[in-house]
């Protein structure tokens, strides 16, 4: 072993995250001096070019922020524009939106669980390699993901960037008889989701707790497409007050902005927050699966987020089946949303966390200003803080082992870097 005063280690590309970023760790003696999650995904300027567009355009345009969670962008955008125009979309149309969102949760969570995150727990570089030894599990994951995509394709027209979503509702709504084959697919998906919870419950989870405040939507049902924002410390506010509670700051090392509470605190949004704040709203089947997997009243271990995601897939499949069984076709595919001058806010639960949109409309119905706060920028400060503590407790590991653990720790958060402004290079500098 050679002794050096200072060393810099660059490990190529953290894979299995959505977007491009890098991790930089500087260690001096026993102290972790700096941890930076650098997001260098090229900026695409959505908030700038939404100005001057018609109030009907954000669902199609903002879907292009992310190929993995386009429905989240469409739902937050619709809600915000409708709020600005004084229109509420509920009843059968609201239920259909929730049904579409269930499809995205199933597809996105199945992708993350099986293709991105599980290989870490089982020691493989990816799902293709995992399939050599665990073919049945990977096939189950692909089947589950396909079921989510089938729901997206049926209701949205296609799985990536659905075409059937509009401000006010949909372009075309299905006849009840059309939903029968989909229900069959979802029943199989629900069984696959239950098997996923059982499978993931057998993984080994490092001991690590998250200390940040949770932030998630809260409603009469498990939060998806609507609700009020709720913090873990009693903070409750509607979408319209989001900017009074959350500020975004720019840091030199990232093209994603960092969000914090205006009173200074960091927070975490996503599956851990949703589950911990809304566990009692899960369906009986999902709750039972959570209990069997050993998830308690709240879950503060980010490594266990894969389990929470699996429970949420059970819920989404269960909820989709409930929505299909209760489906009454709406009187018309969309309610009219005549534009007016004003400001509207929308908050929904993307698979990886809270997604806030705000639009200011002019009297001509054109957008004057837009603001989009994706979950990954909200979680970035909490991720960095967690990594600092995670690294500090594992300095005895060599660089290679430490790097591997850090990559896994980052994947816990399912960061969607395309959203927040892909690829992670890790640099560990020790002196």
């Amino acid at each position: 072993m050679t002794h050096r005063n200072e060393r810099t280690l660059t490990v190529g590309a953290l894979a299995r995250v959505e977007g491009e970023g890098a991790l930089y760790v500087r260690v001096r003696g026993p102290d972790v001096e700096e941890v930076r999650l650098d997001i260098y995904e090229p900026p695409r300027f959505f908030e700038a070019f939404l100005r001057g567009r018609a109030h009907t355009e954000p669902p199609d345009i903002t879907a292009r922020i992310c190929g993995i969670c386009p429905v989240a962008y469409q739902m937050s955008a619709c809600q915000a524009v409708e709020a600005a125009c004084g229109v509420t979309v509920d009843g059968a149309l609201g239920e259909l939106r929730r049904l579409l969102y269930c499809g995205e949760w199933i597809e996105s969570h199945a992708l993350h669980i099986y293709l991105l995150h599980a290989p870490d727990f089982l020691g493989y570089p990816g799902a293709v390699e995992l399939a050599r030894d665990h073919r049945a599990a990977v096939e189950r994951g692909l089947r589950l993901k396909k079921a989510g995509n089938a729901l997206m394709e049926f209701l949205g027209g296609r799985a990536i960037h659905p075409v059937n979503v509009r401000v006010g509702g949909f372009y075309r709504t299905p006849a009840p008889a059309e939903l029968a084959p989909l229900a069959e697919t979802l029943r199989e998906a629900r069984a696959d989701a239950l098997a996923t919870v059982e499978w993931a419950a057998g993984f080994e989870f490092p001991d690590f707790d998250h200390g940040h405040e949770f932030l998630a939507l809260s409603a009469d049902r498990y939060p998806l497409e609507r609700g009020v924002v709720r913090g873990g410390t009693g903070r409750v506010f509607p979408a319209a007050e989001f900017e009074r509670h959350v500020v975004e700051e720019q840091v030199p090392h990232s093209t994603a902005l960092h969000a914090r509470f205006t009173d200074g605190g960091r927070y975490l949004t996503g599956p851990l927050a949703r589950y911990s704040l809304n566990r009692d709203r899960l369906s009986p089947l999902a709750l039972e699966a959570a209990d069997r997997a050993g998830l308690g009243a709240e879950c503060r271990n980010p490594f266990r987020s894969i389990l929470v995601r699996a429970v949420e897939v059970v819920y989404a499949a269960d909820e989709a089946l409930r929505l299909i069984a209760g489906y009454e076709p709406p009187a018309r595919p969309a309610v009219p949303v005549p534009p007016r001058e004003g400001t509207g806010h929308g908050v929904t639960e993307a698979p990886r966390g809270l997604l806030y949109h705000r639009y200011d409309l002019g009297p001509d119905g054109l957008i004057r200003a837009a603001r989009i706060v994706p979950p990954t920028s909200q979680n970035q400060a909490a991720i960095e803080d967690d990594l600092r503590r995670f690294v500090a407790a594992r300095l005895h590991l060599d660089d290679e082992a430490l790097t591997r653990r850090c990559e896994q720790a980052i994947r816990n958060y399912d960061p969607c870097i395309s959203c927040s402004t892909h690829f992670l290079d890790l640099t560990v500098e020790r002196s």
Partner: protein
Amino acid sequence: MGRPTLAVWKFASCDGCQLTLLDCEDELLALTGEIEIAHFLEASSAAGDGPYDVSLVEGSITTPADLDRIRHVRAVSRKLVTIGACATAGGIQALRDFADVEEFASVVYARPEYVATLARSTPIAAHVPVDFELRGCPIDRRQLLEVLAAHLADRTPDVPSHSVCFECKIRGNVCVMVARGTPCLGPITQAGCGAICPAYARGCYGCFGPSPAWGGGRPNTRGLLPWLDMTEGEAHRVLSTFNVTAFREGAPAEGRGDDAPQ
């Protein structure tokens, strides 16, 4: 001889087109029996240095660093296939080409000087030779499989260049423009999606870009306007989305990137 190797690369984009490969749920494991996925960071942390038989490239070139990276990708790829509207036309982020990028950055960032970005978002072919361009925002899964299968069989991919109207007829859709007066870009848009939008009772909004059936030039959208019953502003906006540089009149000449000689 081993299996041919495939690499997947991402530039400025939403991940949707490379996700299309993972969305081939029924074919993915069979495909990996025929092709070795040697570099695909969204799916695996195992990445070889190449060279690769085929590279799929998603995304447009928008930063100085990516100008260098695309040259590297070309150098390590026997065939280079671009996938999606960003890689073939600059994508929606090419709206900056018609605006002041510094002003754009100032709207999004308090400290725009921290952000390295080019004034234009350019397609891959503006910088390096491209062997095949697969269109769409996002690309179509069946077309992607056709391109990969064609490569394995060493033949030309069967990707038609006719307009969406043909697909509408094949699908048996009622024409939304004729029957309902709904503005539809189908007549001037390249086929490939399967005419999804008219099947869902809305007009085509041009995800696949202009159909080359228009003789290689830009479609005569102005001539179409009276049919569409749209104001100039509406027509301008509908053409200014995911394939803005390919559709829009007055767009900067194609094939000129920020690194092109002045």
